[in-house]
């Protein structure tokens, strides 16, 4: 046992002070009576009949002394547990979003964890060393094997709780790896997860089991005759609560509803009649709960493509239908001779021929090219076979969600050389689909006639067209633009993009490019709408293109209390009593009990 506030022991001086007060209080009020003859008889009766009456005076003092002793000790904050720790202490701090729950004396669980770890650092004995591992989306060793409590506390004070999950199991593995071969080690985990099998790790469980938390865990949208339809899913843990939900469309309050959310269940709330021009929606749970950061859900209504596509083909029915189904944008069909001179499109599709000069203001698809083009030298038409996909990034993008092997070619053009081109799909061992990227312009070449393959008849065809559209005319944000905190966001640079930046909800700007390709963005800030801004400098002029994606907390972080997995399988000399166990609440309770008892004895004696 140790005292976290040794100066508090000075309060013990109040004990002799009380005794002195009692001694001073011995002065009696003097009364002259006619005789003490009868009083002597009474005194004898008193002594004979109620011996506790004489004791009562002492009993009051003893109770007061006990009360003061308990209070003094409580001020000194005695704590149990530190002495049980080994010479090597490894502290793991759970930095997951649920640790932001503010249900420990007005502070967050993470604050309490920092405080406890700080106390542990303060209580280091001579020869004890302490390491600190921060378990967020990524593991971080804050302090390694230090006996300097100030240094440890400086490291702790620089830590911030994240908005993502935490891989505690990996952190425990790292801690076990950091443990010296010889000697005992105590691994202390400060987390809000309830572990059934701690595997020798001393788990300091933070947070209250009965904390109430409501969260917007999912958002999705559709379109109806009345306009846009938004569905928000609200989850609640703790007791059943009545919640007030507010919907903000592009920052303006659009609707508000109250609902009763049963404990531990999800409730879907539908919002209809949202104007079609709405760009972003935000659903907010009014009122306070344990975890505030999951009280909002965001949704970005994606706009249909407005790209202009030039389709130059005489037999382009399959491609036209597939592009239309993918919502690819405005398709302009042109004949071969017209296509030679038409410019100003985002995508040029040449089916069965290659124009004299390729356009430079957009991406290009070459389907069954009839001549050599930009480093691609074609040979004779050869017999085809089943296709196989490559594992390059561009190839994987093109073949995403496709069963490539189900596609077979009857015949295709042999590529003799392909300088500057990258093979995405092969037919046998020969290239069948090529990609090329130069100066921000992307090109896809299919070295076969669609009619010479079973591709248009397969479900893979619209998928391939969709993938080719995304490759040729990439959006800043791929997919549905919804991410969770800590999840890597792969942003794509538009053709001719010279700069790509992401602005987080709290205004922090991260520049991801140049250099290209853009770096992977990992949202670590507060949940909300992140804005992607690209500066596109086309030959005809420059423009700023913006996109957005939403980041929310992982849904599992909202469920309080959280269940942890097993930490078994490694070293750790900790017992079931984790960290420090402060005794002051119990001492204070004893002092209160003594005060009540003293009052009762005093009243009974009056």
């Amino acid at each position, binding site marked *: 046992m140790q005292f976290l506030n040794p100066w508090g022991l000075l309060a013990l001086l109040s004990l002799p002070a009380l005794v002195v007060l009692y001694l001073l209080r011995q002065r*009696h009020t003097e*009364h*002259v009576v*006619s*005789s*003490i003859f*009868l*009083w002597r*008889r009474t005194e004898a009766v008193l002594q004979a009949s109620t011996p506790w009456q004489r004791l009562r005076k002492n009993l009051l003092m003893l109770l007061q002394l006990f009360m003061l002793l308990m209070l003094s000790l409580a001020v000194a904050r005695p704590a149990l547990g530190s002495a049980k720790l080994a010479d090597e202490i490894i502290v793991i701090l759970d930095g997951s979003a649920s640790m932001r729950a503010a249900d420990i004396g007005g502070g967050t669980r993470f604050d309490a964890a920092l405080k406890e770890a700080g106390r542990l650092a303060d209580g280091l004995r001579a020869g004890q060393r302490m390491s600190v591992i921060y378990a967020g989306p990524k593991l971080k060793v804050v302090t390694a094997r230090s006996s300097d409590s100030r240094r440890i506390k400086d490291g702790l004070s620089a830590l911030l709780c994240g908005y993502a999950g935490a891989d505690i199991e990996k952190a425990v593995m790292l801690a076990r790896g950091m443990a010296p071969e010889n000697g005992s080690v105590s691994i202390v985990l400060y987390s809000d997860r309830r572990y059934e099998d701690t595997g020798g790790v001393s788990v300091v469980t933070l947070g209250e089991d009965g904390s109430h938390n409501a969260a917007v865990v999912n958002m999705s949208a559709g379109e109806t005759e009345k306009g846009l339809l938004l569905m928000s899913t609200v989850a609640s843990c703790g007791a059943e609560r009545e919640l007030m939900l507010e919907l903000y469309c592009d920052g303006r309050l659009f609707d508000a509803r109250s609902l009763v959310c049963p404990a531990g269940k999800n409730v879907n709330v539908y919002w209809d009649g949202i104007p079609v021009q709405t760009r972003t929606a935000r659903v907010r749970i009014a009122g306070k709960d344990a975890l505030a950061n999951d009280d909002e859900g965001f949704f970005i209504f994606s706009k249909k493509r407005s790209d202009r596509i030039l389709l130059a083909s005489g037999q382009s029915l399959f491609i036209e239908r597939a592009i239309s189904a993918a919502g690819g944008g405005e398709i302009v069909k042109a004949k071969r001779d017209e296509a030679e001179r038409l410019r100003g499109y985002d995508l040029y599709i040449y089916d069965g021929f290659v124009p004299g000069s390729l356009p430079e203001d957009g991406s290009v698809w070459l389907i069954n090219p009839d001549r050599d083009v930009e480093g691609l030298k074609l040979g004779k038409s050869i017999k085809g076979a089943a296709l196989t996909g490559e594992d390059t990034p561009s190839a994987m993008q093109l073949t995403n969600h496709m069963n490539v092997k189900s596609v077979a070619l009857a015949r295709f053009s042999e590529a003799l050389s392909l300088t500057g081109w990258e093979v995405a799909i092969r037919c046998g061992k020969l290239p069948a689909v090529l990609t090329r990227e130069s100066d921000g312009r992307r090109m896809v070449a299919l070295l076969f006639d669609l009619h010479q393959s079973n591709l248009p008849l397969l479900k893979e065809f619209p998928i391939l067209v969709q993938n080719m559209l995304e490759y040729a005319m990439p959006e800043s944000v791929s997919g549905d633009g919804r991410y969770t905190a800590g999840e890597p966001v792969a942003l794509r640079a538009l053709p001719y993009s010279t700069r790509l930046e992401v602005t987080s909800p709290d205004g922090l700007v991260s520049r991801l490019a140049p250099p290209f390709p853009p770096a992977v963005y990992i949202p670590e800030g507060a949940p909300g709408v992140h804005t992607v801004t690209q500066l596109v400098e086309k030959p005809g002029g420059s423009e700023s293109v913006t996109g957005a994606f939403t980041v929310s907390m992982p849904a599992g972080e909202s469920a309080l209390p959280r269940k942890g997995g097993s930490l078994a399988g490694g070293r750790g000399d900790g017992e079931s009593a984790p960290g420090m166990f402060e005794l002051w609440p119990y001492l204070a309770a004893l002092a209160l009990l003594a005060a009540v008892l003293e009052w009762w004895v005093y009243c009974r004696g009056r």
Partner: protein
Amino acid sequence: MDERLFDEGFFAGLSGLSLKVRWPAGGAYSGGRRSRAHGSTVEFSDFREYVPGDDFRRVDWNAYARFEKFYLKLFLDERQLHVRIFMDTSKSMDCGEPKKGVFARRLAGALAFLSVRALDRVSVITLSESARELRPPFTGKAALARALDALESVGFGGESRLYEALKGYRGLSRGDGLCVVISDLLTDSDYRAMLDYLLYNKQQVLLVHLLSPDERRPSMTGRVRLVDSEGRGYRDLELDARALAMYEKAVRDYEAEVASFCSARGIHYIAAGSEEDVRAFLLTKCAAAGIVGTF
């Protein structure tokens, strides 16, 4: 300065009262009380045969004519009663609210007045560490007035040693009167021995056990030091309702104990309070005890 204890109004209130005694008076002087001896009153008492030496003038000649024997006709005699009023004048009698000493002196004066009016001989003796007669035994109103003056100026002090003081008193004769003891009996001295000593001297005894209201029901509480007024030390006590209740019970027990002792010996016992009016005390408690009657 105390107001006067005795005034005309005080004695006017006693005009209809008389002091009654249970036994015949055995005094040496003739007085107003019926005596066991035969005397010269007109009230016939008995006959007896003549013996030589008798005054033949008392021979009943009518009886001689009938029986031819000499018989003497006897008549009752009236003697003087000696009323001794023993008043405790220890320091404790000067305490209480109202003071017990005031009541004691007024009661002594009233009894002396009633006695003088009944032609009794009166002695007022103060008892503390020793016994002292205020004045020599007296009769008559003039002497009573002087005795009352002496009562007015009686001082209280010293310890209460009732038995020792009484033993030192030489004015006590056997079987000649009534002894009234007015005391709070708050003393280590053996009151039983004192009363037995009076009975041994063939005295009729009336004990007035005088306590003040604050002695019966004290009101002080808390941690107190009770100092004995007669200098017999002190007691430090923590007084609360429970302790006070026990004290009051001790007082009642003490009074009952004294009353029981007196009852067993034919002693009149009357518990008095210093807050009581003397005339009311005489009319109620003393009358109930048969000590005082009305004409």
